[in-house]
């Protein structure tokens, strides 16, 4: 029964809208009583604009960089929060979540001045750094939950079996953390790829990501073009996740694949 409900809601809320959008991107706006009018105009308009391909690359690279920094910072912080006890631990945990409660504009304005001083305004690096503000708190939260599921003694056991810190991380922690790592990459990539305000302020219009040109397109009010553009937009997180998974597979090796098959 539950499974049925899941499939039905999947169909209604996910598969049908996506299919409709796919059809819409290759037809002119449909009116009742008229046959579908197939056209490739939507896709042509999107890819005729040379900025689209360029911004797709920029968005992808920034999203991947954001995801990578998220993991590099998130894993040690999450491990400390989950497996160690130190004074003011709960306070620190709350502080690390605070960026989510701060109005994004307030953070952006303050950071903008700093970025200008440091010469990072209007650069992709600046944009990458500012995208950490809305992503790192989620990553820490997700990875901490992942570490909470690994008993501390299991890591001690690894050390007792004479694994060094890196060996233990690669062969025990990483494979067990894969589901959490996958979620945090997904979150970081989609959040980063969807940022408009932060990118606009820090990137100053020179760093062109997909949202930067998506919104102007929105004004064209051409449904066919918009549908094609939206699908192109979805390709970015999809590509980022494929790349991230491939990288994780290289590091964690076979155990990574096995975890997938097991579920």
């Amino acid at each position, binding site marked *: 029964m539950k499974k049925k409900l899941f499939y039905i809601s999947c169909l209604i809320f996910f598969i049908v809208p996506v299919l409709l959008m796919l059809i819409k991107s290759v037809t002119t706006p449909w009116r009742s009583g008229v046959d579908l009018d197939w056209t490739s105009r939507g896709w042509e308009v999107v890819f005729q604009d040379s900025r689209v391909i360029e911004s797709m690359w920029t968005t992808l690279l920034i999203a991947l960089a954001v995801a990578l920094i998220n993991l590099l910072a998130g894993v040690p912080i999450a491990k400390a929060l989950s497996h160690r006890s130190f004074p003011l631990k709960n306070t620190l945990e709350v502080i690390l979540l605070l960026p989510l409660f701060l109005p994004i504009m307030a953070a952006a304005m303050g950071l903008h001045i700093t970025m200008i001083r440091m010469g990072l305004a209007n650069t992709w690096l600046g944009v990458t750094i500012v995208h950490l503000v809305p992503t790192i708190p989620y990553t820490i939260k997700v990875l901490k939950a992942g570490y909470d599921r690994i008993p501390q003694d299991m890591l001690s*056991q690894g*050390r*007792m*079996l*004479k694994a*060094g810190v890196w060996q233990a991380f690669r062969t025990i922690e990483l494979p067990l953390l894969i589901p959490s790592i996958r979620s945090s990459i997904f979150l970081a990539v989609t959040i980063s790829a969807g940022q408009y305000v932060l990118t606009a302020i820090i990137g100053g219009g020179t760093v062109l990501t997909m949202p930067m040109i998506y919104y102007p397109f929105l004004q064209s009010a051409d449904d066919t073009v918009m549908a094609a553009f939206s699908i192109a937009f979805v390709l970015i997180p999809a590509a980022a996740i494929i790349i991230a998974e491939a990288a994780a597979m290289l590091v964690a090796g076979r*155990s990574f694949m096995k975890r997938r098959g*097991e579920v």
Partner: protein
Amino acid sequence: MSLPYLDVKSVSKTFDTNNIFTDLSFSLQKGEILSLAGPSGTGKSTLLRCIAGLDYFSQGEVMIEGSDLLNKQIKHRPVGMVFQQALLFPHMTLLENVAYGKKLTDGKKQAYEMARSYLKEVGLDQQLNQYPHELSGGQQQRAALVRALLLKPKLLLLDEPFSSLDPGLRKDLREWVRAFLKKEDMTSIFVTHDKEEAMLLGDRTAVMAEGRIQQIGYPEELYHSPQNALVASLYSDVIVLDKTRYCPAEKARWSSEKTVDGEWFAAEWVNETYHFGRRYAHVLLDGGGSITIPAGEQHSALKGYVIIPEDEIRYFHAQ
């Protein structure tokens, strides 16, 4: 006299300002198994973790085969450890789990070969490619033991390895573990809070309580001549009368009347059980505390007296 194989010299552990344990000393001969018994929260596990290198002593020295253990990094300490849970890595097969440590030091081929032969010996060769969740609790714990032994440590630490298993399995496994450790001639320290388990597994037992080793010796010594009230109540079946005197529980008897030759306690008969053909009474002393004594031929009575015959009263031999 030959030098002890393992020599633990007056080690202490302080956490913040609390002393977890102070000035513990004991030594083991090669192949000897020491049971470390005592109530939970007395630092038994902490002691093991400090010897293993997962924690640090505040003071003291540990020598193994004449060389200092504590200045070695955890990676280079010849010490293995089995935890309360089997802690097999869930993403690896049984074979990969058991070979894990050996693989890091000796390479895959040799590790797998050795793991296979050990697993065959302990009857787990049909499960080589199964994942931990497919194994029973007893199989998992056996695998954990083999995994630790594969590295051929000089000292094996076992931290209540049976506590997560059900009683029947526990019984089978502890006999098997003792036989296996003896066959491997493995010097071991085994932590438990169960006195029967301590007697069954260890050659000698150290009773640890209140941050000290209260007494260390063979089961017979601990059972028949406890040094103080703490050891008596933890390890032996006695009725502690006061700080200096006790009476073996088997010498006490139940009576519905007071007596003149000896001591008595007013008590309430709660229940009775049978062990090896004898009937035992579980009684609740009016002054607090419950004890088990031979019930004799007496009919159970709700109210009565526990009689301690005068000539059965013994004295603790504190050293």
